[in-house]
């Protein structure tokens, strides 16, 4: 797939975002803009609120104050359109352990197919081969190692045509080769005019346009 995204396809903004968990303010007055070509890494110590913010940005959680805008419209007012333009990959990979990688991937791709993506069986097999799962396509996922299971979920990134990627700790459990594959994928996405928001304790070397958002002071300091 020769990727390339329209120059104004991504426009996600947060305005004066405030988020509390159990009476502890995780972040406040947070302003944020993500446009085409951006790569934003959310950084910060354990418990700073990276996952929390990422889930807000992905639209999975409405428990915040302030505004989240997609093309200047409140995110949850145009959620269907937003959903069709971003892919979210969390800690959990939505992999059914009794099914094979190919069956799992087929389900993962179904919303995109419904939205008009043409996909052949070959594409699926190729995506799995790309994440080094060639030969395991028909092995039930419960027989795969921790890293192999994560790769099944990641293989989706090779197929999905969404301009915005939202990834939570995607490097977890990946070996060196897996890490470099993913880094390259991210780089390609940004180069093609897409955007990526990522949380990771990993350094993300070698990607030029990287922007870091350092979240919060150490969480312990906020204690009462």
């Amino acid at each position, binding site marked *: 797939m020769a990727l390339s995204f329209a120059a104004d396809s991504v426009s996600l903004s947060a305005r004066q975002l405030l988020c509390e968990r159990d009476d502890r303010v995780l972040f406040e007055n947070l302003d944020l803009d993500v446009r085409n070509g951006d790569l934003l890494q959310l950084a910060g110590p354990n418990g700073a609120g990276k996952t929390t913010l990422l889930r807000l940005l992905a639209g999975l959680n409405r428990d915040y104050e302030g505004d989240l805008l997609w093309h200047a419209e409140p995110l949850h007012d145009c959620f269907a359109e937003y959903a069709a333009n971003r892919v979210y990959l969390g800690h959990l990979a939505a992999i059914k*352990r*009794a099914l094979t990688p190919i069956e799992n991937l087929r389900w993962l791709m179904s919303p995109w197919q419904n939205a008009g993506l043409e996909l052949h069986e070959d594409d699926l097999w190729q995506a799995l081969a790309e994440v080094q799962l060639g030969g395991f396509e028909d092995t*039930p996922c*419960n027989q795969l190692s921790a890293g192999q299971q994560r790769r099944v979920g990641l293989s989706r990134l090779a197929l999905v045509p969404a301009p915005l990627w939202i990834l939570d700790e995607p490097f977890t459990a990946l070996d060196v080769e897996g890490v470099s594959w993913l880094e390259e994928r991210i780089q390609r996405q940004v180069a093609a005019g897409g955007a990526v928001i990522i949380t990771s304790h990993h350094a993300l070397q070698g990607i030029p346009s990287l922007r870091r958002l350092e979240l919060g002071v150490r969480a312990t300091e906020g204690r009462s």
Partner: protein
Amino acid sequence: MWQWLVRLYHRLGSPKWFYELTGKWIIWLALLSGVGMLVGVVMGLLFAPADYQQGDSFRIIYIHVPAAIIAQSGYMIMAVSGAIFLIWRMKMAAWVARAVAPLGASFCLIALFTGAIWGKPTWGTWWVWDARLTSMLILLFLYFGVMALQRAIESEDASHKAGAILSLVGLVNIPIIKYSVDWWNTLHQPATLKLTERPPMHPDMLIPLLIMIVATYLLFALLVILRTRNEILWHERKRSWIQELPEVAARIKGGQR
């Protein structure tokens, strides 16, 4: 003697040996049980006299009783092979146990089914909560429990062990269950319908029954062996001796994999 036992044990534990040996048995088992059944059925249906009370309907006994007997011994076989697997880690035993479970359950179902069919003309009802019937039903539940557990556990080895543990616990419980059900029944149930008191059977009825029992045992053995051989083929599929088997080699050549 001890030496011989040890050798036997090692042989029994060897899938290759089992496969090759039983390969020669299959045909004989099939022949014997087939002929036995034929003889038993012909004798039972055509030559045995009709029962003076039940008429011809009693003839279903030639299926019912063998099936009931085998359902019970099947559980023993399953539990004992499970124990052998647990204690000596002999894989063959686990495969045998797994092969027996659905077969035993099937015979159990057959016994229940034929019993029910028989019950209608004799008792006027398909089912009563008689001690024998009830404990047969519970045996079916025990079989289903073992099978469901084996199915549910992902890891192959763990599923064998879990099945073995459960069937052993069940084995310890079977006498308790049987006893309690008998006790319960004698307390609650007025003795209106009884199949426990066996009238002394006429030899013309008895002999075909005995033949049928033996033949059904042979059939059961045959089925267990066939299923076990299937397990062997699957688990040892990558070993060279399998790939060199004439029947397998021919398929590999034929491109069927």
